[in-house]
């Protein structure tokens, strides 16, 4: 526990009343091959809350997340987490990648994967202790997967795999979470579990930034939206942002029927 504290204090969290955004992005642009995937996005996330990143296919939602995390190189722009450069604040970040990004035939079980969320606290070349495995089990329990801890991950359903990924992020005990389509293609039970966990995280004062494809559920679940279409279209509280005009800007004419959501 002492070591855990030591590693954590390397990251800096300003007092809640200081008004420093958990994530502040300035002038972020990303190029894939010959064209810009994202142009000049500047945005500051609200402190504590659920943010949905929405936009049509190919709008650069995942690219935004990956560029913020430094997983794809940015052409220009800076990213600050709690007022400091991202590189100094990695320990404050939790990440749920897209399920398709890994090989599920890999020879590990669910608990092994969840424990990976603790590696940053365990440190280089050190063994995984019982305490970290217990933390992994607790995280699995929170997503209703404790009974599957010893199951090889390839034998889990898609929804269960998604819950394992969420549990791994919970095990990171982060302040700021990035999730790439955590609700894509999951069963109803998994969706309920994930939404419940998201609300718990919000209640704990954490910030969750979620790439989300389903406009139908945005208003019911999320507090804020970041609307992208290769650049920033609109950002702010859900109620004021999901307007007909914004949706048409982001999605084009075909979105006008969605206005009932706002």
């Amino acid at each position, binding site marked *: 526990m002492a070591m855990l504290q030591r590693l954590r204090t390397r990251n800096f969290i300003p007092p809640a009343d200081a008004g420093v955004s958990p994530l502040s992005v300035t002038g972020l642009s990303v190029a894939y091959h010959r064209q810009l995937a994202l142009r000049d996005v500047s945005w500051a996330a609200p402190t504590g809350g659920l943010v949905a990143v929405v936009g049509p296919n190919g709008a650069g939602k995942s690219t935004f997340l990956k560029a913020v995390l430094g997983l794809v190189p940015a052409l220009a722009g800076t990213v600050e987490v709690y007022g400091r450069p991202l590189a100094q604040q990695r320990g404050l970040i939790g990440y749920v990648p897209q399920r398709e990004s890994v090989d599920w035939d890999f020879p590990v079980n669910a608990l092994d994967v969840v424990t*990976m969320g603790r590696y940053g606290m365990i440190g280089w070349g050190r063994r995984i202790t019982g305490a970290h495995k217990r933390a992994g089990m607790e995280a699995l329990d929170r997503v209703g997967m404790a009974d599957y801890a010893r199951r090889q991950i390839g034998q889990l359903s898609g929804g269960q795999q998604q819950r394992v990924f969420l549990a791994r992020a919970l095990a990171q005990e982060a302040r700021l979470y990035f999730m790439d389509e955590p609700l894509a293609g999951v069963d109803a039970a998994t969706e309920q579990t994930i939404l419940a966990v998201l609300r718990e995280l919000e209640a704990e004062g954490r910030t969750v930034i979620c790439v989300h494809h389903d406009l139908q559920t945005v208003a019911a679940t999320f507090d804020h939206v970041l609307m992208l279409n290769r650049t920033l279209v609109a950002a702010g509280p859900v109620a004021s942002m999901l307007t007909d005009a914004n949706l048409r800007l982001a999605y084009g004419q075909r979105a006008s029927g969605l206005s009932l959501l706002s």
Partner: protein
Amino acid sequence: MMEALPFAGMGHNTAMVLAGTTALGIAAGTVGCFMVLRRRALVSDALSHATLPGIVIAFLVGLALGVEGRSLPLLLLGAALSGALAVACIQAITRWTRLPEDAAIGAVLSCFFGLGVVLLSVVQALPAANAAGLKGFIFGQTAAMRSGEAATLAVLALAALAGVALFFKELRLLAFDEGFARAAGWPTSRFDLGLMALVTLVTVAGLQTVGLVLIIALLITPAAAARFWTDRLGIMLLVAGLIGGLSGGIGALLSARFQNLPAGAIIVLVASCFFMASLFFAPARGLLARTLRRARLRASLGAAP
């Protein structure tokens, strides 16, 4: 004690070769697991083929410096350097162009190996050079191995094993989910460098015995065979190490018994036998077990009302 062993009476040298090749097999099998799981199997093939120009150039450097005979450490250093250069080329090509990795591997591998073959024939034509031993690096030879060389090999292999033991969890994370590792702030490119260093260590250690054409088989075959036996990475490493070690040991014994058989090829064939046996008969994921499971399920369908 020694008399009870099947290779008793083979002399100190054979025992040393046996120990050396067994250690090499254990290390290659273990390290190879991460290359297979990270889908980098062919990168190690490029690395091993690309050692040839380095070996020949190191030989020429030794000749110019007036080193007596062929100096093994110098040759292995040259091998490691040109192998590493090839891997760096592959990474640069896939990073900065849109060429897929397999094409980059093919281009770099053949370029380095072709250069090596040309350099080798040039050197062998030199009147002053005693380059006869260099050809042994292509297909390997144990007959000429000295005890000191076998001991060096064992030490290199043990170093590779120690690396895997120390960084087991980091290597597992890297192989499973590189994106997550990077997001969490792990220096993944340094992990990759470390993994390539381990593979280089094993490759260079195996150059003399197995040869640069076949060393890929000792890295990949035990790992591929072990995957049939288990769904746990730790056990997979142990099984791959065991298969690699047995292949190295049995192969060395067979080639010592039948003088004309090349050790490298025999070792690789023994490993291939283990692979075939695993493919068919491994209880966890083997074909036979799979067929039986399906048959039982089909039977249970018929039994249901």
